[in-house]
């Protein structure tokens, strides 16, 4: 059978039912890919496939232990729920997150839009503030009021700046 879009031999046969109407399409590999019906696949040698598999396993084991020292969220938890725990996750999960962001953001990996006033060098300060605040909550929980007072002063000082 001939492809409906060009003269090549049709290898992809699709039957769709839209609004109760049956539609048949017969396309060659190339046209089917262009139409977004099939995805281009590369021929991968079998040994490469195996080593990729081993790498992926090792990587997933590494990722299973990955967590953020600030908010304690695990990478696996984020993958399950879809929401990050705190801004520091963008550093803590840097490597796997970068791949994910690239995929979600149409290949983009860095910001080119609006920049807040006086943003230079702020990221480190912001994370420090986040750490102080997390430590403050922990101190209060453990009824370590001496530390809590010290941390509260630090936070105030930060916020004043």
């Amino acid at each position: 059978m001939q492809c409906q879009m060009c003269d090549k031999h049709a290898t992809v046969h699709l039957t769709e039912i839209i609004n109760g109407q049956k539609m048949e399409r017969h396309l060659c590999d190339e046209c089917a890919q262009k139409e977004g019906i099939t995805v281009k696949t590369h021929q991968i040698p079998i040994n490469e496939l195996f080593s990729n598999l081993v790498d992926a396993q090792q990587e997933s084991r590494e990722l299973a232990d990955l967590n953020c020292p600030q908010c304690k969220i695990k990478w696996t938890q984020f993958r399950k729920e879809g929401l990050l725990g705190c801004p520091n996750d963008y550093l803590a999960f840097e490597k796997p997150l970068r791949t994910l962001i690239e995929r979600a953001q149409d290949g983009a990996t860095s910001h080119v839009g609006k920049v807040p006033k006086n943003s230079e060098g702020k990221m480190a300060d912001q994370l420090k503030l986040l750490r102080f605040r997390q430590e403050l909550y922990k101190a209060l929980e453990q009824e370590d009021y001496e530390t809590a007072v010290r941390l509260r002063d630090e936070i105030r000082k930060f916020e004043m700046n």
Partner: protein
Amino acid sequence: MTNISDIYDHTADWMDGSGPMSDIVVSSRIRLARNIAGFVFFSHADPDQQKELLEHIRSKVMETELQESLWYITMDETPDLERLMLAERHLISRRLAEGSGPRAVALSHDESLALMINEEDHIRVQVLSSGQQLEETYENINRVDNILENKMEFSFSPKYGYLTACPTNVGTGIRVSVMLHLPALKMTGQIDKVFRSAKEMHLAIRGLYGEGTEPIGDFYQLSNQTTLGKSEEQLINELITQAVEPMVEYERRAREKLLKERTVALDDKIFRAIGVLTNARLISSEEASYMLSMIRLGIHLDRIHDITLKTLNELFLLTQPGHLQNICQKELEPHERDEARAQFIRQHLN
């Protein structure tokens, strides 16, 4: 106006159906996602931290010049019905309306600005306007963002931009959207093309109430999906020139074609809709939306002269489940709502 309860028996200015391209572009909306530096994200904060965040943001917002034109509404103290109405008016998201934990909305008296606090992100700023006014809307929301930035510090990284709880919003944190009315493309069987081209341009196309909702009454919400790697102006400009303008053009052409080649069939649909709406004793909100959609088309194609756009817009909003129950001053079961809706529409069209 001083009382929030006064807004629920009429439409807001931004819903008046005016503005550029308003025959097809019903409204423009821009949202910005922002998080306060030094805090964990909302979903990961414990109840005390969530309360602290809410109080922190409330007090900072109330220190700004925005304060005098804002109502501050805490979700926990707002009855279910009112939260439903706020969502029907597109002023809060379903997530904020139905979520849990300390959360609020600061809402401008003209309903064009809403600051949702403790949604998925600490703050979601939203500005709405009528017709295709995305550029003006961005100017407004950017001004609000600057005012807020004077009082609070937002979580920002030089590499990733504004940091958000979900990485799909990271960077600009901007969601630009328009509500399109595309009945002629639907009637001429070309709506699939719209879906396909939106997909190709990495744009999201959804129903009237955003994520997870089905298109009803031929209304489609079109928005950007990527937020990183492009500036705000670029994202807005791309949405306008690559999607909104061509789609408006296609819809106008489809309308002209219908008017020229299928006049009787078109009139039949429009006047049948009037027939149903002026006579029905029971009508679901879905059916009402489809019928009102036909009337909107009829008004814009000059086929109907005795129903104004204002009446139509009011019927759209006030027949939603929440608003309808508010008008009737009692809780109504779905079948009771269908009866009340039919009656309300008859009264306003006869």
